[in-house]
């Protein structure tokens, strides 16, 4: 159907034009434009490619960049997983998954990391090692790692062009001088393939090592800021640090209270107003899978009540 025919189709009531949407919501021209940006992003790892981000039917800042990237790559043979804070069941993850279930008929959705071909995420990298055929799509609020040091795009563009990242090192070093630590705990800047310094999106720095040499393709979409960037599979991704203050990830003293996993990122859950709290896996699929395999933490429910 040509564009002209489309607008000539029967109007709804009150002189309203017909309201129809393409597969995966975006029109084909928009998909092409985003796809071209994705290819450039993969060819220049860590470089932020400007793209003509569209208004999406969810607010800017709520995943419009990730949604546009996902919509541009998604095919009917894909299996989509959406997580927010590591969980498939948080409201925004549910809303975005529902959006694709409605607008991309034929695309299967899953909560199982290993079954997904495309995983859209906000703030986490799944605990389970990703595979070569998988794409991890990050939602990014502020793609510019230098933005809080230099608010002007015209300036930060120049700094990237010159690979001048002195500002960032100074900032991290000032942290050390003031606090005795690098005080950046999430959105911890990384250097990609020895060239561009990149914002990994607000994932906890705990997840940074998972970006390095990953077999999966990692795509980053910032809708409001109109930027797409990428890390191809098997690319060197190094957190910025200093010899005397090497990069360290968060360490949790106790295992997950539900599945007893260690070496994973945990959420703190407040249990009462007397200081009672526990720590559980932020990656709910990982935690559920372990519980199904019979792993039990100190607070886990009885088997029959678990699911």
């Amino acid at each position: 159907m040509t564009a002209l025919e489309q607008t000539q189709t029967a109007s709804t009531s009150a002189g309203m034009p017909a309201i129809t949407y393409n597969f995966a919501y975006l029109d084909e021209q928009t998909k092409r434009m985003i796809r071209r940006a994705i290819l450039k992003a993969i060819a220049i790892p860590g470089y932020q490619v400007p793209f003509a981000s569209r208004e999406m039917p969810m607010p800017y800042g709520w995943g419009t960049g990730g949604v546009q990237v996902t919509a541009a790559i998604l095919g009917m043979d894909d299996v989509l997983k959406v997580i927010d804070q590591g969980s498939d069941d948080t409201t925004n993850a549910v809303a975005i998954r529902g959006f694709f279930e409605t607008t991309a008929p034929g695309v299967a959705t899953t909560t199982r990391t290993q079954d997904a071909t495309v995983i859209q995420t906000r703030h986490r990298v799944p605990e389970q090692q990703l595979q070569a055929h998988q794409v991890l799509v990050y939602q990014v609020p502020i793609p510019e790692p230098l933005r809080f040091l230099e608010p002007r795009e015209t300036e930060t563009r120049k700094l990237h062009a010159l690979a001048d990242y002195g500002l960032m090192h100074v900032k991290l070093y000032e942290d050390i001088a003031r606090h005795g630590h690098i005080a950046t705990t999430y959105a911890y800047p990384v250097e990609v393939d020895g060239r561009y310094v990149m914002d990994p999106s607000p994932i906890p720095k705990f997840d940074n090592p998972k970006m390095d040499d990953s077999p999966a393709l990692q795509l980053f979409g910032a809708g409001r800021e109109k930027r797409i960037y990428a890390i191809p599979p098997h690319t060197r991704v190094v957190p910025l640090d200093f010899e005397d203050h090497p990069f360290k990830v968060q360490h949790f003293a106790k295992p997950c209270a539900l599945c007893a996993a260690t070496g994973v990122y945990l959420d703190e859950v407040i249990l009462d107003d007397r200081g009672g709290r526990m720590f559980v896996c932020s990656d709910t699929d990982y935690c559920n899978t372990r519980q199904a395999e019979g792993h039990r933490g100190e607070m886990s429910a009885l088997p029959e009540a678990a699911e």
Partner: protein
Amino acid sequence: MYVAVKGGETAIRNAHALLAETRRGDTSVPEIGIDQISEQLTLAVDRVMSEGSLYDRPLASLAIKQARGDLIEAIFLVRAFRTTLPRFGYCEPVDTAQMRVERRISATYKDIPGGQVLGPTFDYTHRLLDPTLAGTTTEPPAPARAETEDGAPMPRVTDLLGDEGLIEAAPSTGEYPRDLTREPLSFPADRPLRLQNLARGDEGFLLSLGYSTQRGYARTHPFVGEIRFGEVEVELFVEELGFAVPLGPINVTECQMVTQFKGSSAEPPKFTRGYGLVFGQSERKAMSVALVDRALRFKELGEEQSAPAQDEEFVLSHSDNVQATGFVEHLKLPHYVDFQAELDLVRRMRAEHTDPVHGDARQEAAE
């Protein structure tokens, strides 16, 4: 024993059902119709069309109803629909000199060819609440129309000034304007791009910025050369036909500010321009755009940069209310993963503060 919270899906469904119920309100009160919104909340519809960048009254009215009267939400609904529409091409520039004027005023001249036409305006109304509007049967008295002026030519005031060489020629890059909605904004932005950004910018944001220029933050000594509101024809040049075909009329408000003159040893002094054009009737917005447009031209006119309204990156990056509301409101989304990361660090640093030697170890043991 602990069972993790689940049921995001159900919660969302229920919230949306509640929203629908709240939107409808008391069902003993008749439901508002799209035509009522379109006919009686005209300025709300105009604003939604203008900042939604889509000239469609029924859709804007529907959006206002759906948004429960929250105009930024309605603008957002319209934008999200607009973005999916196919493009046929770009229309010819509308010729506001040919406008079928409903209102037209100039602050710079007492009388002008074609006359001053007050038209439908809040100006000079006494802002006293009118109890007669609280009823539902008020029929307004029929207004007298200025028949004599009808059809008389109404040259633009800035054109009259231009004929005398008193105002700069309308600045032009000579290039076909780029399309803000089809390519990402990059800086420096040229004037056509800035004007596109301002045309869809938030009325409140631009009003405040325009106001700031009047209070001395990049003052431009503005005079309202002319404000006109009325109907203009939109035309599309069809290559196969070799001529432009009319697509239909739209209402626009145009504001031409006559601002601070400048001159040099080479050139005698001339007034300069600030320009604003918006869909529908919104003088507040058109005037604000004209003020900010003029402030943003400081470099081209050899003026000092001293104020927020002149700061192109600042103004253009923050003018869009759909972007702004999305990002401000996204703070409502869960952030507990990053907050946990901060908590961990703050606890660690507090422990070190109390016991600089063993703080780190003690903190970990405590966890």
